[in-house]
């Protein structure tokens, strides 16, 4: 006897953010299944293409999915970042073939995807995000992307410098990551940028960072403060000293947040804004952004709203 599944969840075993969704769906008595990308060897999976029938066996329990699948919660990368580690041939095969398999779940075109990886792939591009943000009426910081330090920058002013895409590196066999940095114009002039483009933005300071989690037409916004004030530079450098304060965005800014998520073809988006000099500036949107760190602030309403969408409520 197989159990027919209404909601498919693609994640991995240690993604606790997905636990919130599954715990909520379980409490609601929903028929869902979670497939973890790091546990495929524990599953028996067969996809009958002619009937779009996906049959799955986990721990002796049988499940099936067909074209009536209602929704997919997709917590998987759309493209993989090279972290330059050596892996054996089994691991290489596992990664490439299962990654392709879950991409091919795109056959369930009638399901609601949070988010559809096709749209996530497009939305992950920061320069395109800025274009769309400007298009919906957001203020955006003055921005250039360049591999030349021959720019008309003021050597005595500060600028924000960041990577176009999170730069995950190995430097002398040690892991490295690039935060957003505040850099003097003189230091940009003195840097050899030829090997890689960077984003240079105007430095908006003092500022307050704002995180906006958008789910369809719903908004959950927090201010990010340290000792009651905005954080100079990248707030992610401060791990435990921050307060996340829920607040209501002005209606026109909320609407712009909803619009850009919609314009990018997404249901969910985690938007970073800055409040500077009384004006809201769009910084970026994360189509696969984290939200579990905000569940407490919003009394578990974020996962409940995501589940509402997954259940088409």
């Amino acid at each position, binding site marked *: 006897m197989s159990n027919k599944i209404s909601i498919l969840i693609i994640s*991995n*075993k*240690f993604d*606790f*953010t*997905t*636990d*919130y969704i*599954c*715990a909520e769906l*379980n409490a609601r008595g929903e028929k*869902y*299944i*979670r497939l973890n990308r790091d546990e495929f060897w*524990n599953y028996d999976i067969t996809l009958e293409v002619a009937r779009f029938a996906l049959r799955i066996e*986990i*721990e002796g329990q049988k499940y099936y999915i067909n074209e009536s699948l209602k929704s997919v919660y997709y*917590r*998987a*990368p*759309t493209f*993989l*970042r090279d*972290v330059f580690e050596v892996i054996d041939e089994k691991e290489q095969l596992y*990664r490439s073939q299962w990654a392709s398999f879950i991409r091919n779940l795109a056959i369930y075109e009638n399901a609601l995807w949070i988010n559809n990886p096709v749209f996530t792939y497009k939305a*992950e591009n920061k320069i395109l995000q800025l274009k769309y943000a400007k298009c919906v009426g957001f203020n955006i910081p003055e921005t250039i992307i360049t591999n030349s330090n021959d720019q008309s920058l003021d050597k005595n002013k500060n600028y924000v*410098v960041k*990577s176009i895409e*999170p*730069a*995950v*590196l190995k*430097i002398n066999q*040690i*892991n*490295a*990551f*690039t*935060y957003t*940095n505040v*850099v003097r114009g003189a*230091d940009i002039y*003195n*840097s*050899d*940028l030829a*090997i890689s483009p*960077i984003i240079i933005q105007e430095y908006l300071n003092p500022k307050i960072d704002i995180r906006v989690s958008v789910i369809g037409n719903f908004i959950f916004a927090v201010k990010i403060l340290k000792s009651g004030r905005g954080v100079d530079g990248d707030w*992610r450098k401060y*791990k*435990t000293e*921050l307060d996340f304060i829920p607040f209501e965005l002005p209606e026109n800014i909320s609407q712009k947040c909803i619009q850009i998520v919609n314009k990018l073809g997404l249901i969910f988006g*985690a938007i970073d804004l800055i409040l500077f000099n009384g004006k809201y500036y769009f910084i970026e949107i*994360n*189509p*696969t*952004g*984290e939200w*579990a*760190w905000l569940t407490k602030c919003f009394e578990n309403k974020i996962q409940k709203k995501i589940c509402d969408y997954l259940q088409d409520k």
Partner: protein
Amino acid sequence: MEEHLLLAKAHLYESPKKNCDIDNAVYDALKGFWVYNESKFPCVMDEKFAGPRTKKDDIETGEDQKGE
């Protein structure tokens, strides 16, 4: 000329621990979440559970787990 800014400013860090099981808990593959051994209560719904309470857990590879 100095080193490229993204290299000069890179933050070095130890490899995060991967696939660490949780004390007193087990992953329930049928329910799709971690539960405490005895109570079967979802770990993430426990105030004391040290899961992703801040964004710090994902700073090093971005938010999308693309760095596999």
